[in-house]
C-alpha cells in the first residue's frame, strides 16, 4: 500500500487563550495522518477531541507547535484555499428548512463556484457522483428536514465529498445513530479512504467499532497527550488497556476488544460442548458468576450432547435443565 503523509503534527499544543492565562487542553502531540487510512480519535469526554479536530481544521489557532497540511503550514492557507483541502462534517446540527438534499450537497461546491454560487454542469455531475458514492441518490429531491439522523449524516458526508478535499475530518459522525447505521457510516468512510485514497480522521465514542474498523487510532486522555498506532499494536503493547480499562470494563487481548466486566460473586466449572459452554459462560457472567472449563468450583454444569444442561453441586444429586432460562432459574448461587 502506498500512502502519503497528508497532515504532519509537530509538538502541537491545543487549547484556548484566555485573558491572562492560556488554557492548554493537550500538548506534546506528534503524529501523522496518512492518505488511504481511516484514523479514529478516541478519548473520554473532555479529553480534547473536538479541540484537536478544530485546531487541525484551522477553526482555532494552535497554542504552539506546527500543523503541516499537504506540506504547507496550516496558518499559511487562505480560507478559500483551505476549503479545497480539508472538508468537515460537524456535530452542530444545522437547522435547515426548505433545502433539498441535492442543494445541500451542492453547497460543497461553493469553494469552486463563482460570484452567485451557481453550479455548472461539471459541478452538478460531481454532486451526483458524491450522492451515489454515499448511497443517497434516491433522496436527492427530499427536503433536508424530513431526513433521519443517519441519512442527514450521509448527506453531510456527501457534501464533504463534493468539496473534493483530500482530507475529511468528522466530529463524532456516529453519535445519535442506531447501531446498524453506525456500522454503515464507518464502513462507508473506510471504503472512501481506501478507494479514493482520502485521509479520513474522525472522533468517536464507539470504542468497539473503532477498534474493529480503524486503520489507525489516536488515543487521547487528560494529561497524557496523544498516543497513536494501529489498534492491534496498541492492544498488544497494553496501551489500550491502560487508556480505557476501569472498574466494570475489561480488555480482552485475544480479541482486542473491550468487554463489560461485572464483579463476580460465585464460580462454576463448565464441561461439554465448547459452543454451548461459551453461551453458558456468557449468560452466567451477566449474572455475576465466573464460569469456564478452567475454573475450580464444586459446582459444575455440563452441556449435554443431546441438548440440555446437567447441574451438579458437590454431593447433591444432579438436576437437569432444558433451556438456558431454566438453567438460570435452577442455579441458585
Amino acid at each position, binding site marked *: 500500500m502506498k500512502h502519503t503523509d497528508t497532515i504532519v503534527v509537530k509538538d502541537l499544543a491545543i487549547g484556548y487563550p484566555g485573558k491572562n492565562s492560556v488554557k492548554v487542553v493537550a500538548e506534546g502531540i506528534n503524529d501523522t495522518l496518512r492518505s488511504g487510512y481511516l484514523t479514529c480519535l478516541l478519548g473520554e469526554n473532555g479529553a480534547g477531541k473536538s479541540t484537536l479536530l478544530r485546531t487541525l481544521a484551522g477553526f482555532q489557532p494552535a497554542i504552539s507547535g506546527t500543523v503541516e497540511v499537504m506540506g504547507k503550514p496550516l496558518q499559511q492557507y487562505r480560507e*478559500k484555499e483551505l476549503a479545497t483541502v480539508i472538508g468537515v462534517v460537524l456535530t452542530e446540527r444545522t437547522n435547515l428548512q426548505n433545502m433539498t438534499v441535492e442543494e445541500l450537497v451542492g*453547497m460543497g461546491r461553493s469553494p469552486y463556484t463563482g460570484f452567485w*454560487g451557481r453550479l455548472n454542469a461539471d459541478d452538478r455531475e460531481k454532486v451526483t457522483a458524491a450522492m451515489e458514492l454515499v448511497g443517497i441518490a434516491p433522496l436527492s429531491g427530499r427536503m433536508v428536514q424530513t431526513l433521519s439522523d443517519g441519512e442527514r449524516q450521509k448527506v453531510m458526508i456527501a457534501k464533504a465529498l463534493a468539496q473534493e478535499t483530500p482530507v475529511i475530518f468528522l466530529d463524532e459522525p456516529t453519535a445519535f445513530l442506531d447501531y446498524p447505521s453506525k456500522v454503515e457510516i464507518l464502513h462507508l468512510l473506510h471504503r472512501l479512504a481506501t478507494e479514493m485514497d482520502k485521509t479520513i480522521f474522525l472522533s468517536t465514542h464507539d470504542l468497539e467499532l473503532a477498534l474493529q474498523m480503524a486503520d489507525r487510532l489516536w488515543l487521547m486522555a487528560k494529561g497524557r497527550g496523544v498516543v497513536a498506532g494501529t489498534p492491534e499494536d496498541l492492544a498488544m503493547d497494553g496501551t489500550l488497556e491502560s487508556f480505557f480499562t476501569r472498574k466494570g470494563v475489561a480488555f480482552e487481548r485475544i480479541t482486542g476488544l473491550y468487554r463489560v466486566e461485572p464483579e463476580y460473586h460465585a464460580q462454576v466449572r463448565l464441561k461439554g460442548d465448547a459452543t454451548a459452554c461459551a453461551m453458558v459462560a456468557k449468560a452466567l457472567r451477566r449474572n455475576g458468576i465466573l464460569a469456564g472449563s478452567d475454573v475450580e468450583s464444586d459446582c459444575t454444569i455440563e452441556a449435554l450432547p443431546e441438548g440440555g444442561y446437567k447441574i451438579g453441586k458437590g454431593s447433591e444429586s444432579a438436576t437437569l435443565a432444558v433451556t438456558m432460562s431454566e438453567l438460570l432459574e435452577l442455579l441458585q448461587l
Partner: protein
Amino acid sequence: MILTAASVVLLFFLNLLVGSVAIPAASTWKILTGATGVDPIWQNIILKSRLPQAFTALMAGAGLSVAGLQMQTVFRNPLAGPSVLGVSSGASLGVAFVVLLSGRLAGVALSSIGYMGEVAMTVAAIIGSLAVMLLIMYVSQKVRGNVTLLIIGVMIGYVATAIIGVLKFFSAEEDVRAYVVWGLGSFARVSGGQVTTFVIIMAALLPLSMVLIKTLNLLLLGDGYARNLGLNVKRARMAVIASAGVLVAIVTAYCGPITFLGLAVPHLCRGIFRTSDHRTLMPASMLAGAALALLCNLIARMPGFEGALPVNSVTALIGAPVVAVVLFKRRKEDSGE
C-alpha cells in the same frame, strides 16, 4: 416570481388610481404620459401625492424585506427582523433628540418649520441608526456567538427607548405629538425632492445587497460549515449587518419605523417558494415586500379612511393573517408528506 412581479405593477397602478378623490383611469394615464388638457388639481394629486407615495412604499417595502431576510439568515433566528439590532431604535432616538430638544433649546417647534424640519429629522434618523449600527458592528467583533450579539442589540433598543421616554417627559406637548406621529410610520410624509433622493438611494442600495447572496447561502449552514467552505464568517457577518443596517436606517429615516413587513415577508417567501436559496429569496422578498407595502398603502388610503390609518396598523392587520395562513398551510403540507 412573475406573478409577484405582476402584482407589484398592478398594485403600483392601483395606488395611483385609488384615493379619496376619484380620478378616472384615462386621465391618470394622460397625466403620467405627460399629455395636456387635464385638470391641474388632478395632476397635482397624482404627481405630487400618489406617485411619490407609491414609489416610497415600493422602495421601503423592498428594502425592509431584504433587511429582514438578511437578519433572519445571519442570526439563524426566525424572529429576527430588520429592527432587531436596535437600528430603528437608533433612528427613533435621533429623531427624538431633534424633535423634542429643538423645542426646548431653540424655542422653535420643529414640526412647524416645514421642509427644513423634515430634512433635519431625516438626517437625525440616519445619524442615530448608523451610530447604533456601528456600535453593533464593533460589538460583533468582540463577542463570540450570534445570540449574545442579538441580545446586545435588543438591549441597545431598550436603552434607546428609555432615553426617548425621558426626552418625552421633558418636552412640550406639541413636540411629543410630532414625534408620535413620526413614530406611526407613513409612506406619505416624504414629499417632493426628498422622494427622489430616497428612491435614488434605495435603487442603488437594493442591487448592492444582492452581492451577499452566496454569503447568505453559506451562512445558512452554520458558522462551522460556512467557514470550512471558505467563508470568512466574521467579515461576512459584518457585511450582512452593515447591508441590512443601512437599508433599515434609510427607510426608517424617510418613512418612520415601519414594523412587521421586514419580519413577515421573508417567511411569506419561504412559504410560497419553498426554498431557502437566497438566489430566489432575495428577489422574491424584494418583490413581495414591495407588493405588500403597496397593498397596505392602498388599504390605508381606501375611500372612507381618508389616509387616516397609520401604515403600521395596516401592515400588521393585513400582513399577520396572510403570513399565518401561508405558514399554517405549509405546516399541513409538511406533515402530509
